């Protein structure tokens, strides 16, 4: 694992020592090379995990997330080039350093064995993200957004620290590989109910769960493009990954403790999808769509069946790529019109036809069109929730319909129809932007040929 971590850390001296016209080239190239190294981890020979050391391991759940993380850094760097072009050199280097630091912490989080180490790195990802949102966001609301983001997550995760330490006292070790074999049922008591809550709330806030999701639209909308990309694609999946890891220790309370959260998620996915239909702000629409997809992941994780775990993992990867792509597309609009209002830039298909093709593909994968991996994820989750309780099919079906509705609404509003008269002077699509979209879409389409690598450890 050091073969990925040390090069990522070394990206920081690389940015500071590069010449002015080489910083973007150097960092993007080397981060692409690092993501090639991480691809070798996808070769998971058995259900057992690959252990690299006492501190890092990789298993069929964390490998796809790791590959997604390393794949996303060059994409983030490519997406940020335009809005940073007018900044002084030191600030560009600071921005890239923040992204690289975040990347390092994320890689270490996804591969940590010890749960306290996972916790420390989980919290550590907050600091660079906060700095990116607050320092480089564009509107005054970003201050509030940063505070909401930091404090929601910290309020949820401090009880997690206490819970992890008390579990360590009880069982003697928090090394994840050991706990898999030592697992015994938690005795039924009030304090164990609070332990369950303490363990799960941090990840619920991160996912986010419907009632605790207020930080997400703020943070996603106010963040610059790289911040939005990494938030949507990876940081939300940290919550999902944490939940998947920690629910193995929390039986049998999960069978009854999960009910309120299942209700909130099932209802929340419908609510947030419906809110998407009424949004005027493009980034806000994509942010709420993230909440809706993540609610499906929460349902899947709490049901705890093999199929639902497969669906959760596939959905996380698929949503990561799709959501990040949608944010890049919204950003390409924003860079041209400096406004996130959807109706201000309509009919773009006439002006930017190739970008319209990417918009179409992104919207189609967002609404889970077969045979994309989005569909595989959603389908597995719908099937397993149907087997858990027949009635949920109504809510799931309604959600799929409303998702289709708002994805098509977004597509039609921005691409079709007559173009507005004031946007006939926008710049044509840059090659960089087309490359960015292609690099998002290609893994998504290729994975539909072999989805078993992202189906997680219950395949």
């Amino acid at each position, binding site marked *: 694992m050091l073969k990925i971590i040390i090069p990522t850390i070394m990206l920081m001296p690389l940015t500071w020592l590069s010449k002015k016209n080489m910083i973007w080239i150097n960092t993007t190239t080397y981060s692409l090379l690092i993501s090639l190294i991480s691809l070798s981890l996808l070769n998971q020979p058995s259900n057992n995990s690959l252990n690299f050391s006492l501190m890092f391991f990789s298993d069929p759940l964390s490998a796809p997330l790791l590959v997604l993380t390393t794949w996303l850094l060059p994409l983030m760097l490519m997406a940020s080039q335009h809005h940073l072009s007018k900044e002084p050199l030191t600030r560009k280097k600071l921005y890239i350093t923040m992204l690289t630091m975040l990347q390092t*912490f994320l890689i270490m989080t996804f591969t940590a064995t010890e749960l306290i180490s996972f916790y*420390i790195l989980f919290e550590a990802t907050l600091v660079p993200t906060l*700095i990116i949102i*607050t320092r480089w966001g564009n509107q005054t609301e970003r201050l509030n957004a940063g505070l909401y983001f*930091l*404090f929601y997550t910290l*309020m949820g995760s401090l009880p997690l620290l*206490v819970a992890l*330490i008390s579990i360590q006292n009880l069982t003697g070790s928090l090394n994840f590989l050991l706990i898999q074999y030592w697992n015994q049922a938690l005795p039924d008591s009030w304090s164990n109910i609070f332990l369950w809550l303490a363990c799960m709330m941090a990840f619920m806030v991160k996912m986010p769960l419907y009632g605790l999701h207020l930080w997400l639209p703020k943070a996603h909308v106010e963040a610059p493009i790289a911040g939005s990309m990494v938030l949507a694609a990876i940081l939300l999946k940290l919550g999902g990954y944490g939940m998947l890891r920690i629910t193995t220790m929390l039986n049998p309370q999960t069978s009854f403790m999960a009910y309120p959260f299942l209700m909130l998620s099932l209802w929340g996915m419908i609510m947030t999808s419906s809110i998407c239909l009424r949004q005027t702000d493009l980034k806000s629409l994509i942010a709420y769509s993230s909440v809706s997809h993540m609610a499906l992941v929460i349902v899947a994780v709490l049901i705890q069946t093999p199929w639902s775990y497969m669906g959760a993992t596939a959905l996380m990867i698929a949503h990561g790529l799709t959501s990040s792509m949608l944010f890049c597309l919204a950003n390409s609009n924003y860079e041209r019109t400096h406004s996130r209002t959807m109706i201000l830039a309509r009919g773009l298909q006439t002006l930017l036809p190739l970008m319209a093709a990417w918009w179409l593909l992104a919207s189609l994968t967002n609404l889970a069109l077969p045979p994309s991996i989005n569909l595989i994820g959603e389908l597995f989750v719908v099937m397993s929730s149907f087997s858990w309780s027949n009635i949920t099919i109504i809510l799931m079906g309604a959600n799929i319909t409303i998702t289709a509705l708002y994805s098509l609404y977004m597509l039609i509003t921005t691409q079709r129809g007559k173009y507005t008269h004031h946007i006939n002077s926008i710049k044509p699509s840059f090659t960089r932007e087309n490359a960015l979209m292609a690099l998002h879409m290609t893994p998504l389409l290729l994975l539909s040929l072999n989805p078993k690598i992202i189906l997680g450890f219950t395949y």
Partner: protein
Amino acid sequence: MNPLIFTTILMTVLLGTMIVMMSSHWLMIWIGFEMNLLAIIPILMKKYNPRTMEASTKYFLTQATASMLLMMAIIINLMHSGQWTITKVFNPTASIIMTSALAMKLGLTPFHFWVPEVTQGISLTSGLILLTWQKLAPMSILYQISPSINLNILLTMAVLSILVGGWGGLNQTQLRKIMAYSSIAHMGWMTAVLVYNPTLTMLNMLIYIMMTLTMFMLFIHSSSTTTLSLSHTWNKTPLITTLILITLLSMGGLPPLSGFMPKWMIIQELTKNSSIILPTLMAIMALLNLYFYMRLTYSTSLTMFPSTNNMKMKWQFETKRITLLPPLIVMSSLLLPLTPMLSILD
């Protein structure tokens, strides 16, 4: 002040604390405290104006009261044990009185009212000495009597201190008052774990002193005492803004910076001793502290405060050279990976 006299007075302060920390006779400890108190008054009054006089008077009155209470506890202890050596305190009354006296010296709730006012009235360097060096002596006595302290009183004072330190600092814009409330909250954390594992109190003290030293030196470097003047540092020394950001986040206890280490260790020790609600409560209340640190970072490093056009062409005297600043900054932010080295403290 005449350098010779200043050196003598400073040495007396140091000597006073050393006497407190190294004596085994209760009377010598009391003498050490008095020496410390008398010698630090001129240091607090380095600038001669009514504000400083008021602050020094408040400090003197509270500390003298605390010394008197300490003397009473010593005498009661003498009465019940018949000897002057410091071991544990033999009588619960004496223990309670001694704990209150030391809490008054440290600035724990409910004896915290002097800390913001005194810190605000004195210069930045004197405030630095007040909030770091002066805490060493009472803490060392608490460490030595820790087996016999009444747990209820100490924990109540600790939790209330964390609350007061958090809530009190929320409405402040003066940097010295912010540091004072942060000191109250950190003292709360330190005393909470005193009965369970005094080594962690010392660890917390060490890291707190490092971080407070760093913060004060950064303030001295930019000669700023209010949030507004701190927000001009991007103009004077842009690097300082980044360092202020890092150090403030470390004081707030965010991983992966070293300020997280004492909090983590304290939570671990408290949880090992089967108190679970207490560390959760303490950790959540530390978020209040984090909020006003974040507000400081917002105005300093992360945004640009509204300023006039003159600000962009500011002239200034030659930059002060603060020798110890780089190592202090490194230590106050990057020590977390060295946590396994804590085993040497045993």
